[in-house]
Structures are given as structure tokens and as C-alpha cells.
């Protein structure tokens, strides 16, 4: 079994959970004997290629054959509009990105034939253009390689997947890691929505990372339930090392770690913190991350008069994240909508008791985390208080949580996906 997989990023160069998930999944697939050709817009050459063969879309020349499917590609052309749609970006990163793209604007895509396209592979202002160019290159790649099935991750690569399917007739699997509704609430970007919907309609099977996401796919995109299956994400802790902290302070620390955006529900964390602080003074709250709701959050904390007990760290990365976990007594993820959510697993792996919202996909696979509705501030405050005031609870959650997290293997997810591949390729032969 050989799969042509379209992704957007791959470790070590990642900006979100997508790259990590692709890495874990491809490793799992290769363990179960599936060969993966992984196409990404811009490879740097230092990707871990033990499990997959990476194809760098920036190095593929467009040939004559692809122009035969031009009629299809013309459908994709509408995407080549400059747009400033930018997911996953902090304000600082955004300015940086705009500056860069002004300077390094690539000129060479006026002509299709015999050209290489240069992709940045980043989430930037030229995203839509890149998406459509990626689709053209994908068609080229599909015509050059042998494979049994096509697998595309998230909407950025769906057009690439569809192009490859149109050209070769091989079955297409699209993988929903997040929907536009998760990213933007009800105020969606309709361009992205259309792309997602189109990708899923053309696909032979849609994989959702949780039942939560599956329901959104069915209810908001109108995809037939029989075509949508849930394969829960897993987590790969190879080489995960815990940071030891010696000079711990006496006070307990409750942590929120993530982008401070609508999707992550920071305001619920702040309100709950205020309630807890009224009855349990010996605790500090930390909000780590940045995002468009940061300023509003700071104002709210000041207004509630808890600023001496509530701290903002800004964006953390790498070692700092681990140190933050090591300092924490409680980790809270009050997401309004979270397709899956890896960070609670990292917290649990670091022996931190965890509270997650019921509106997260990860709640479907975890037993030993405390689950509350994101909007139920009283319940959230109660859970935080419970973990702080009743030590037996924290010990119990931590102990069992660690076992549970360690049992979430990508190999299991990969086996499910392999079954899906097998079923689709069999159907095709009939």
C-alpha cells in the first residue's frame, strides 16, 4: 500500500499542531507497512525522512500533461486572489510576515509551463495563492509517482488532493484537523469554508479527529454521515523530557496555555480565577500565550482587581513551555471549540492535573481529566478549587492520567486509517 499524502508542514518547521500530527501519523503508518509519499509546499531538507519520503513541491516542474487538466485547474483559479486571511498568527508575527512577503515576493508564476513555483509554506497573506499553486503542482506530482490512494490534511491541501484525484482517479481521503468554525466561531471566512466543503464533497472518505469535529462536518458542511469517520489523534512522547524545578514557591499555580483567542476561551478562565481567589488566596493564575484577546484579557483582570494574583507571560516556546508545566499545579483548557487538543496531554504527561472543556475532542478519549462545559464558570471554578483543596484528587488524576496518555498511540490511529485505505482501494477494484 502506497499513499500520496499532501500536507502543509512537517517537523521540525511547524507553527501548529498539524505538522506534529502528520509526523506522528506517517510514522504510525510506516510501522504498519504503509508507504507514504509526503508532499509539502516547501521542504527544507532537514525533515525526518525515516518514515516517509518527502517531496518538495517547490522543486517540481510543471509539465505538459498537467495542462490537460486545465479545465479543472481553471476552477481553482478563483483562489488566486490576494487575500489577507491569516489563521494561527499573532499580531507581531503578522507584521513580520507582511514585511517578508513584500520583500520576497516571488515573481515567477506568470507562466505555468516549465516553471517551478516557490512556496513559503507558511501561513501568510499569500495563502490563497499558494493553495491554488500547490494544487497545480500536486497534479504534476500525481502524474509522476505511483500510489494507491491520496490523503490530504486540512483545507490548505484539499485542492491539491482533488487535483490529484481528478488526474489519476485514485480514491481521496481528506483529514479534518480543524474546521473553519473552530478557528473563527460563527463569523467564518466563506472562502475557506467553500474550500473545505468542496474538498470533502470530492473526497471518498472524510476523517475527523474527534466526534465533535465529525458532527460539525455533518451538520455544518452537509456531508453524508456514512462518509465521515472519526479517528482520534494520538500523541508521541518519544524523547519527551520533563524539566525539574527545585525552587518552587509555596503558592499553587493554575495555568492556561495557548493562543489567547476566541476559540480557546480565555475569558472563562479569568472569571473562574476571580471566583477561586475569593475563597482560596494561596494561589496564582498564569495565562501563557498571546493572541487578539490578550489586551481585553488584561483589562478584564485589572477590572476584577486580581492583577496581583494573575499573570501574563506572553508567548512561550520550547523549554519555556516545559518549565511552565513543571511549575503548574493545575492546567486548564477551557476551549469553546477544540477539534482535538494536544496540550492537555502534554500537561498530563508532565504530571499536571488537567481540566478540559467538554467541547474539546480530547475529552472523548480522556477519562482521567476533569471535564466541564466551557461556559460553566461555576463548575470550572469548582474543579480548580477541588484540585487545589483536596490533594487526593490531584494525585489520583495524575497517576491514572499518565497511564492513559501513554496509551494513546499513533500506531492505533494508523491501523484505523490503514483499514480505511484498504476498504477504499477494494471498493475501487469492484
Amino acid at each position, binding site marked *: 500500500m502506497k499513499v500520496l499524502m499532501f500536507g502543509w508542514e512537517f517537523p521540525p518547521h511547524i507553527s501548529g499542531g498539524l505538522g506534529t500530527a502528520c509526523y506522528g501519523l506517517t510514522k504510525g503508518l510506516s510501522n504498519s507497512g504503509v508507504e507514504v509519499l509526503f508532499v509539502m509546499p516547501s521542504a527544507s531538507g532537514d525533515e525526518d525522512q525515516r518514515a516517509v519520503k518527502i517531496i518538495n513541491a517547490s522543486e517540481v516542474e510543471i509539465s505538459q500533461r498537467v495542462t490537460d487538466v486545465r479545465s479543472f485547474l481553471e476552477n481553482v483559479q478563483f483562489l488566486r486572489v490576494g487575500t489577507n486571511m491569516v489563521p494561527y498568527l499573532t499580531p507581531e508575527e503578522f507584521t513580520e510576515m507582511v514585511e517578508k512577503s513584500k520583500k520576497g515576493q516571488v515573481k515567477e508564476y506568470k507562466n505555468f509551463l516549465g516553471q517551478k513555483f516557490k512556496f513559503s509554506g507558511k501561513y501568510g497573506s499569500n495563502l490563497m495563492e499558494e493553495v491554488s499553486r500547490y494544487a497545480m503542482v500536486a497534479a504534476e506530482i500525481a502524474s509522476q509517482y505511483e500510489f494507491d490512494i491520496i490523503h490530504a490534511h486540512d483545507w490548505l491541501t484539499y485542492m491539491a488532493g482533488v487535483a490529484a484525484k481528478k488526474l489519476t482517479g485514485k480514491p481521496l481521503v481528506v483529514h479534518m484537523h480543524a474546521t473553519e468554525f473552530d478557528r473563527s466561531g460563527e463569523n467564518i471566512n466563506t472562502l475557506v469554508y467553500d474550500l473545505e466543503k468542496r474538498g470533502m464533497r470530492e473526497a471518498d472518505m472524510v476523517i475527523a479527529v474527534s466526534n465533535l469535529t465529525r458532527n460539525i462536518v455533518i451538520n455544518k458542511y452537509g456531508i453524508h454521515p456514512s462518509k465521515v469517520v472519526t479517528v482520534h489523534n494520538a500523541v508521541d512522547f518519544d524523547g519527551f523530557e520533563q524539566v525539574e524545578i527545585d525552587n518552587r514557591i509555596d503558592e499553587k499555580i493554575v495555568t492556561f496555555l495557548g493562543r489567547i483567542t476566541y476559540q480557546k476561551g480565555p475569558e472563562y478562565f479569568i472569571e473562574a480565577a476571580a*471566583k477561586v481567589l475569593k475563597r482560596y488566596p494561596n494561589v496564582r493564575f498564569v495565562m501563557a500565550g498571546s493572541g487578539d484577546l490578550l489586551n481585553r484579557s488584561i483589562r478584564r483582570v485589572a477590572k476584577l482587581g486580581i492583577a496581583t494574583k494573575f499573570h501574563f507571560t506572553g508567548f512561550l516556546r520550547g523549554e519555556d513551555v516545559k518549565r511552565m508545566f513543571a511549575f503548574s499545579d493545575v492546567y486548564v483548557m477551557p476551549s469553546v471549540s477544540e477539534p482535538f487538543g494536544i496540550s492537555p496531554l502534554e500537561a498530563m504527561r508532565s504530571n499536571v492535573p488537567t481540566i478540559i472543556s467538554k467541547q474539546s475532542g480530547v475529552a472523548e478519549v480522556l477519562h482521567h481529566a476533569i471535564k466541564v462545559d466551557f461556559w460553566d464558570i461555576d463548575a470550572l*471554578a*469548582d*474543579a480548580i478549587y*477541588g484540585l487545589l483543596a483536596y490533594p487526593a484528587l490531584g494525585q489520583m488524576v495524575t497517576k491514572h492520567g499518565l497511564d492513559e496518555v501513554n496509551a494513546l498511540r499513533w500506531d492505533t490511529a494508523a491501523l484505523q486509517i490503514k483499514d480505511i485505505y484498504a476498504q477504499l482501494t477494494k471498493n475501487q477494484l469492484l
Partner: protein
Amino acid sequence: MKKSICIYFQVHQPDRLRLYRFFDIGRESWYYDDFANRTILQRVAERCYLPANRIILELIKKHKGAFRLTYSISGVVLEQFEKYTPQVIESFKELAKTGCVEFLAETYAHSLSSLVCEEEFRRQVKMHSEKIEELFGKKPAIFRNTELIYSDKIGSLVADMGFKGMLTEGAKHILGWKSPNYLYTNSLNPRLKLLLKNFQLSDDIAFRFSDRSWENWPLTADKYITWLSRSLEREEIVNLFMDYETFGEHQQESTGIFKFLEHLPGAILSQTNFEFLTVSEACKKHQPVAPLHVPYAISWADEERDTSAWLGNELQNEAFGKLYEVREQVAESGDPDLAADFLKLQESDHFYYMCTKFFSDGAVHKYFNPYDTPYEAFINYMNVLSDFLVRVQKRSLATMVKSGTEIAVKKGSKKLKGR
């Protein structure tokens, strides 16, 4: 000699706690979900207790004393009956009047006190016996512990309190090759007779009756009595122990469970060599065959038949330990409100809700549980307990001051006399 069949039904409902947030601690000391407790009790009374009692009464009249059985009713559910559905108590009184029904002793609060505190255990059993005598006119002679929990030590304690017999589970890991269908004795005190539940035949009714995937579905009275007579060749006594809520609540009326109940006694009496006895009568009639050694506590719950459903994880042990820490202070305070809450907080059900086994051990736990997860159950219980502990603390400070003044006054008066 005729073989004996002992039927015993357990009647119990917990006092479910309301959603009690930590900000209520020290401010609001009403702990119970009155609405849930009332509506559930009324529902179960209507679906189970009242119709089942009616049928039992008819059966007793119809068979003219040949149909006899045993009940155990927890003290806390009796209080709930008095408060919400007094007609249930009346219908039990009518059963008691027939003389064909025996009522057992148990711990008043359906508690686990036998596992940790002899004094509390004795107190609750005494309380319960008095309550039963007051309502049904007869002092119980046989004891059944919460969830049929039993060990050698508990047995000898029960014997010491003057009971003639005790009920427990016919747990496989205790019996080994031995049969539950005989009378046994406590290994420390041979005067205490033991009746063991035949879990196969009991669970056929209690758990499997309506299970359509069971190969023996549908279960009829005729089918059941062939099993009954076949399973006892030389043995003497079969004990069918189950929750009374089996009739109409766990197995709904539409499954035909009441029809089964109506037909079973007649079929047994006419077609087999069995006679119905209450547990006291069975203890008198039969000779025990051997002492039974039970070094560690057993119960009738789950596959393990041990106490791990209530005291099997850190959460349960923590909550349980914290509660019993203040027992003496509560007793000394003499405060009736504290004493009442202390009883209700001891109900085994609260600890059952914190059981983490139900992640694997399925449906039975889930059915009885008002909480989504054991963690929620723990947090809620601990919040309530925290408030309770605050009250105990305040109260015992007050009593200390009071008794201190009394002592001072006495000393003062002595001095006065001395002069």
C-alpha cells in the same frame, strides 16, 4: 425434610446531594437535592414498592401462610418514606401484620461503618433495630450488613450484639468447592449462623430477567423452578437475595416481572419439594454444616465481590477517612442537626459514586449514578464535607468553652462550700 427457599428483598434509597459549589462552604448548610430525592422516591414507590407490596400481600393471603419472606429496609429510606410517601410504610405495616414477613436489622444509614468503627457500627445497628421495632412491632433477630459486607470479624461482632444469624454473599472465591446452599457458621463464634446468597439464581431474576440477548430469555416461572429443583440435589436451602427495586424499577413492569412474581410462589409450592421460610425460621430448621472462613471483607457487588466499589481508590479513602475523623466530636457535641447530617453523609452510595472501576465495570454503576464522572462526585462530596467539618469545628469549640465554664463553676462552688 422439605427443602427451604428464603427470599429476601433489600429496600434502600440514598439521600442524594445537591450540586454544592465551594463558594457555599461556610455559608449554606443544606446538602440534599430535595427535588431529586422526592421525585425519585415517589417514582420508585409508584412503580415498585406499592404495586409489589400489593402483590406480595395477595400472595400471602392466597397461600394462607405458606408464602413467607424477608425484607431489610434501611433507616434513611424509612425517613424518606415518612417524609414523602408515608403510604409505603403503611403497606409494609400491613405485610408485617400477616406474620409471614420478617424484617432484618442493618446499619441505620446504609453505611460502611462495620469496616472502620465498631462503636459507630453498634450505635447505628441499635438505632435501626429500634426503628424497625417501633414501626413493625418486632425486634429483628437476624442481621444483614450494607451490601452484604461480611468478614469473620464483623460476624463475631454481630454475634456479640445478640443476633442469631447473618446474611452474606455466596462468593466463589470464599466458597471454593463448597455450596452456598447450606447453612454455615461464623468461624470465630459458631453461634452465628450464615445464610449465603445463591448469586446464580438470584441474578437470573435481578439482572438477566429482561435481557433479550440472554439465551434463556424469556424467563418463566416454570423454567425457573426446573433450575431451582435441579440445582439442589442433596443441598437444603436456597437463598434468593436481591434489591426490591428489581420489581418495576430495574426490570420495568412491561418486561412481565410482576407476572413472574405472581406466579412463582404458586408454582414452587405446587410443583416442587420446597417450602418458603423467613430467614429466622430457616436458621432454626437447618443445622449448619461447617464454619466459613472469611478473613477479608466480601460483599455482593461486582465481579470481585469485595469492598473495592466503595473503598477502592484514593478518592474514596480520602473522603471516608476525613468523615470518620470527626465522629467523636459529632457525638460529643450532642447537636441533633450535626448527628443527622453525619448519618446521611455515611451512606455507602456517596462513595460508590466515586468508584473509578465503572470506567470498565459497566452498566450497573452508571445506572445508579447521578454524576457523570467519579471526579465530579468526589469534588461535590468534599465541598459538602468541608462545610460539615467547619460546622463540627465551630460546634466543638463551643462545647469546649461551655464545659470549661461548667468545670469552673463547679470548682468555684466547691471552694465556696469549703469556706
